[in-house]
């Protein structure tokens, strides 16, 4: 501490403070002192200034705000003597960051030190610029720094700093290195020759320079230069291929320990860091074409893979494994021969069972990577027990890796084991992991369920263990399965009945139990504790514990229990009526309405009660329905298994089915009850949907038989309500079919041979890409409307199939051809759409990963006896639907923007042929597809920056950033830069934005119009081409 007693004394004082308060007092005193001294600047010796600036840094490090004195620190940079200069440089680079205005004041002083002849000052200046230099530094200093890097008169000490300094400047502004830095001489030479030539020659020049740097013998300079190369090739590898063989040479030299000075070996290993960096650089080249280079590289890699042993010394072990894991990455990247790959898998298998936690962690991590790029699944599966052990590791870092790996490796063969482990883990997992865990368990259970009762078990356990983390979607889903599977109903009912005995159950469990017991509780009637009255009792116990949105659901259940009570239970009726009466005056409208409705219905509508009570008397109808459901289930199951077996990411079960309208999560059928006389007063009060927001009222059920409708088993699922307006058709905000008037009716006899769509299908699709409801397709007979809701990577799209004419549309078939990145499930579509009726078919969408492929709806129906109409329609489940608008401030935007470096995470392209838009029109366009413009962030008024969040199952919610640099002189071109943390996403989003900007909209390749198929009596719609890899994408490509 040469001569800085004052600083030592101050540090001692701080250390001697008894408590935080005393420390603060001491710090405040010192800050006051420093401030006073700085104010009376005149008498301040350089020594004192230096001492105070060090004290400021110390205080800053203690966590106190130092909001003055920055100027003094910066001013020391231009001090004439080394000791003060040194302090100025070091403290400035700790206290300020690249965005500070003060830093700009220092640019000249810093530049003078860089171009001056004092080596020590050069080093200080290069260090400051390398650590905190910003864009302005890049623009003014890059050529000077580059000169030092390639200068033969500079010591390695300076050159290694220059290499990393240049790397920083390149990160801040890649252009400076390209144009003014790396090839400054070159540009001068050729500036009068045509531009393409300059670019191509400067490429060669630049790459040559870089390649020359790799000939460096000094390993310090070489280490720094290798970092520079990694950064350059990560931005754009092209033009650097001459560096490739040099990298391999360096690797050979190190791996064979040839000509490596002792001081550059670490625990006997020739610079492990340089080895790692070199292999990293090689991973940015897509491939290695030269056979001899490739051979040499594989020899080295083989040596590393085979020659790394576990040793006792932890540092040596870590260092050699750092090299080994990098080699593994490189082998995976190069897609080596099978033999080498299986060596890798074998190694990883060894690693995941070692005791050393770091190695185990890395084994799991790399195995997950392996899963994605090779067909090593079968070998990896053999390690399942070991991986499951890691899921119970006390270290959360290891547990996370194990969870990722288990999720990735799960398929139908091991789902049961894996999901049960996840469930077990769920009850002990930390909160931060539970949501992810429960979602993953639910997805795996559904995707790979060997049988449905197991699926029900899993979801109920999930709700029981972690109800707070189970989203509504998950319980909707289980209800949907139960509803569609007769065999499952008693099982599900008895299962939830068991859960009801637990003392405290989660509200979601109350919901799902109430729903299932309401529907299927009567199936348990003979079992002890399962009479209607007992079910009511046990459910009603829960009512005081639930929130008000759940109460309407319970009321519905009570009404159903009452209907099912066999023989009629007067006592139960009294109890339930009391409940209804109690809630008649609820302040919650939904609750009040249901209470009133159910009470009135069960009291006044005695006829209805009779009808409902006789429900079980219609077995034929029920069984025919069930049979259809079963048929569907059989087929669905088979195809699903087939799809799984083929490892296809999507196993959407999309089948047209004549079952009327059932199948939406908590489905609710309100029969058309025009035949029933009802008290008009009560009817007029009853305009709501009995199951609240869980339900969609179906105003029409296709049926030729009114009595059948009334007694349809589905009717009990919700007491009829909407009596007043059985013909009411959905009135949606935005273009969804209103009540259809008769104008479009085409007399059967007049049918032309061709059914032309009304309106332009492509335009309709394009419009729906930017909004969430509207008409997807229309022809003289049918109108298909869409209304969609999107949340994260999930979406729910409801298709409204509206029959416009007075005869039924029959043989309605809807088939979804999903692209590989979407999981789509369309609920059952009725076989017939009655005259002038509308049916709703919900479609659940899940986005697996970023892609611009489009799902296609293959839709057909029959009109009259001879006319088959079919249309292939793209569905507006497109990339931007999985974006969530997000507006960033400049503090949020820029660090992210900078941290995403060039390709593949950040892509830039000059887009030409843009349809000319004013800036505000362009802003609107971007906002319309949910890429939010962040106003005022880009200092250039001709530029826009925008941000959004992308959701998919594979990526986490992923921040995406974009910048559009327009040319006010030429509105038809602009430069587009897109960045995100996922390379595929960046590419897809960039292409998507381009499509939106370019004058020809993406739908220009016209869709196949609705073409009448010659009426062959056996005409079948095409069945899903499960043998193709991705039928939806293929089809979308053809359209």
């Amino acid at each position, binding site marked *: 501490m040469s001569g800085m007693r004052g600083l030592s004394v101050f540090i001692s004082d701080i250390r001697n403070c008894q408590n935080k308060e005393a420390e603060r007092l001491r710090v405040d005193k010192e800050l006051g002192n420093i401030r006073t001294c700085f104010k009376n600047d005149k008498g301040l010796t350089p020594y004192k200034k230096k001492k105070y600036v060090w004290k400021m840094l110390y205080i800053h490090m203690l966590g106190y705000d130092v909001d003055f004195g920055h100027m003094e620190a910066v001013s020391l940079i231009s001090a004439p003597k080394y000791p003060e200069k040194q302090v100025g440089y070091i403290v400035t680079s700790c206290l300020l960051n690249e965005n500070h205005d003060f830093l700009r004041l220092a640019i000249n002083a810093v530049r003078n030190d860089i171009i001056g002849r004092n080596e020590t000052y050069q080093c200080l200046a290069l260090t400051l610029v390398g650590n905190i230099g910003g864009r302005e530094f890049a623009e003014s200093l890059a050529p000077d720094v580059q000169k030092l890097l390639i200068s033969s008169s500079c010591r390695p000490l300076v050159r290694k*700093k220059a290499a990393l300094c240049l790397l920083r400047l390149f990160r801040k502004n890649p252009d400076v290195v390209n144009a003014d830095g790396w090839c400054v001489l070159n540009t001068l030479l050729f500036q009068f020759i045509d531009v393409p030539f300059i670019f191509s020659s400067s490429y060669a020049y630049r790459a040559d320079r870089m390649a020359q740097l790799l000939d460096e013998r000094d390993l310090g300079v070489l280490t720094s230069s290798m970092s520079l190369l990694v950064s350059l090739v990560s931005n754009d590898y092209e033009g650097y291929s001459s560096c490739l063989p040099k990298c391999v040479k360096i690797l050979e030299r190190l791996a064979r320990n040839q000509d490596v000075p002792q001081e550059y070996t670490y625990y006997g290993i020739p610079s492990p860091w340089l080895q790692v960096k070199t292999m990293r650089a090689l991973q940015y080249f897509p491939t290695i074409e030269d056979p001899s280079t490739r051979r040499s590289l594989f020899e080295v890699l083989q040596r590393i893979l085979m020659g790394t042993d576990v040793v006792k010394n932890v540092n040596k072990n870590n260092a050699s494994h750092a090299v080994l894991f990098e080699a593994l990455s490189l082998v995976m990247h190069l897609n080596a021969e099978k033999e080498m790959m299986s060596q890798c898998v074998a190694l990883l298998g060894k690693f995941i069972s070692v005791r050393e936690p770091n190695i185990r962690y890395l084994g799991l991590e790399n195995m997950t990577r392996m899963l994605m790029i090779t067909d090593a699944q079968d070998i990896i599966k053999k390690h399942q027990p070991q991986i499951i052990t890691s899921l119970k590791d006390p270290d959360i870092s290891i547990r996370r890796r194990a969870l990722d790996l288990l999720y990735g490796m799960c398929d139908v063969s091991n789902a049961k084991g894996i999901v049960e482990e996840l469930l077990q883990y769920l009850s002990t997992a930390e909160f931060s992991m539970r949501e992810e865990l429960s979602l993953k368990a639910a997805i795996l259970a559904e995707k790979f369920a060997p049988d449905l009762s197991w699926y029900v078990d899993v979801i109920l356990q999930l709700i029981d263990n972690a109800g707070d983390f189970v989203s509504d979607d998950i319980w909707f889903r289980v209800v949907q399965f139960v509803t569609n599977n007769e065999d499952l109903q008693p099982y599900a009912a008895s299962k939830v009945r068991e859960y009801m005995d637990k003392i405290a159950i989660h509200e979601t469990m109350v919901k799902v139990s109430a729903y299932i017991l309401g529907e299927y509780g009567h199936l348990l009637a003979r079992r002890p504790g399962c009479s209607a009255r007992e079910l009511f009792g046990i459910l009603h116990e829960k009512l005081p514990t639930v929130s008000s949105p759940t109460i309407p659901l319970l009321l519905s259940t009570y009404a159903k229990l009452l209907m099912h009570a066999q023989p009629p239970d007067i006592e139960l009726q009294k109890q339930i009526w009391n409940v209804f009466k109690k809630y008649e005056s609820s302040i919650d409208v939904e609750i009040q309405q249901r209470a009133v409705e159910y009470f009135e219905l069960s009291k006044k509508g005695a006829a209805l009660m009779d009808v409902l009570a006789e429900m079980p008397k219609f077995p034929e109808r029920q069984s025919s329905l069930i049979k259809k459901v079963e048929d569907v289930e059989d087929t669905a199951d088979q195809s699903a298994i087939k799809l799984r077996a083929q490892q296809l990411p999507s196993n959407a079960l999309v089948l047209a089915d004549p079952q009327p309208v059932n199948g939406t999560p908590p489905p609710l059928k309100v029969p058309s009850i025009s035949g029933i006389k009802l008290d008009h007063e009560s009817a007029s009060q009853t305009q709501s949907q009995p199951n609240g927001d869980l339900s969609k009222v179906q105003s029409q059920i296709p049926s030729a038989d009114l009595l059948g409708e009334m007694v349809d088993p589905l009717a009990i699922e919700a007491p009829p309500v909407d009596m007043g307006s059985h013909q009411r058709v959905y009135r949606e905000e935005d273009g969804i079919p209103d009540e259809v008037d008769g104008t479009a009716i085409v007399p059967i006899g007049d049918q032309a041979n061709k059914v032309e769509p009304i309106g332009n299908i492509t335009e309709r699709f394009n419009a729906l890409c930017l909004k969430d409801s509207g008409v997807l397709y229309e022809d003289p007979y049918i109108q298909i409307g869409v209304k969609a809701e999107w949340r994260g990577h999930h979406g729910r799209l409801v298709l409204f199939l509206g029959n416009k004419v007075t005869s039924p549309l029959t043989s309605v078939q809807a088939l979804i051809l999903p692209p590989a990145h979407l999981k789509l499930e369309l609920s059952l579509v009725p076989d017939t759409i009655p005259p002038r009726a509308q049916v709703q078919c919900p479609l659940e969408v899940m986005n697996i990963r970023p892609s611009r492929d489009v799902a296609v709806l293959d839709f057909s129906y029959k009109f009259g006896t001879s006319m088959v109409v079919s249309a292939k329609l793209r569905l507006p489940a497109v990339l931007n639907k999985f974006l969530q608008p997000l507006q960033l401030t400049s503090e949020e935007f820029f660090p992210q923007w900078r941290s995403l470096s060039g390709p593949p995470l950040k892509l830039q392209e000059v887009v030409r042929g843009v349809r000319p838009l004013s800036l505000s029109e362009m802003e609107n366009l971007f906002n319309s597809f949910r890429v939010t413009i962040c106003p005022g962030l880009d200092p250039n008024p001709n530029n826009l920056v925008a941000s959004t969040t992308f959701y998919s199952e594979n990526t986490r919610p992923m921040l995406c950033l974009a910048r559009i640099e327009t040319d006010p002189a030429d509105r038809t071109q602009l430069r587009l830069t897109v960045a995100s943390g996922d390379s595929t996403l960046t590419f897809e989003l960039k292409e998507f934005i381009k499509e939106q900007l370019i004058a020809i909209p993406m739908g220009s390749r016209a869709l196949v119009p609705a073409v009448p198929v010659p009426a062959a009596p056996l005409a079948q719609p095409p069945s899903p081409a499960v043998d193709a890899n991705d039928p939806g994408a293929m089809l979308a490509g053809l359209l």
Partner: protein
Amino acid sequence: SNLSLQIRFILLQNRQGKTRLAKYYVPLEESEKHKVEYEVHRLVVNRDSKFTNFVEFRTHKVIYRRYAGLFFSLCVDITDNELAYLECIHLFVEILDHFFSNVCELDLVFNFHKVYLILDEFILAGELQETSKRAIIERMSELEKLE
């Protein structure tokens, strides 16, 4: 602006959470730095010595190592080579140990400015600059002569 292979920051903290060295290679606001230091300390301080030296931190990964009562933490990208950085920490500690001959926390407290100097010879622009212990020690004695 490729930061994907870059050290975001380096922290030296003691068990009580007192920062003994903090160097940021990405621009953060002061309030954000305080938050980061607090969070990283909480993340590493209670981890068992038998655990991995890696822990997820926001969208990154912290590679840390404990020496007596001091935690050395490096924040890097999740795809980066963990073990290489882990040994990078150890090499830094060996350099400090050599420079101070048997380094202890007090050396680092009273000579914090030297620690910054050493670090600047070791890491620059968030990248490893020099891996030769000898080269750094020699450089330090050159610099001491100038003071």
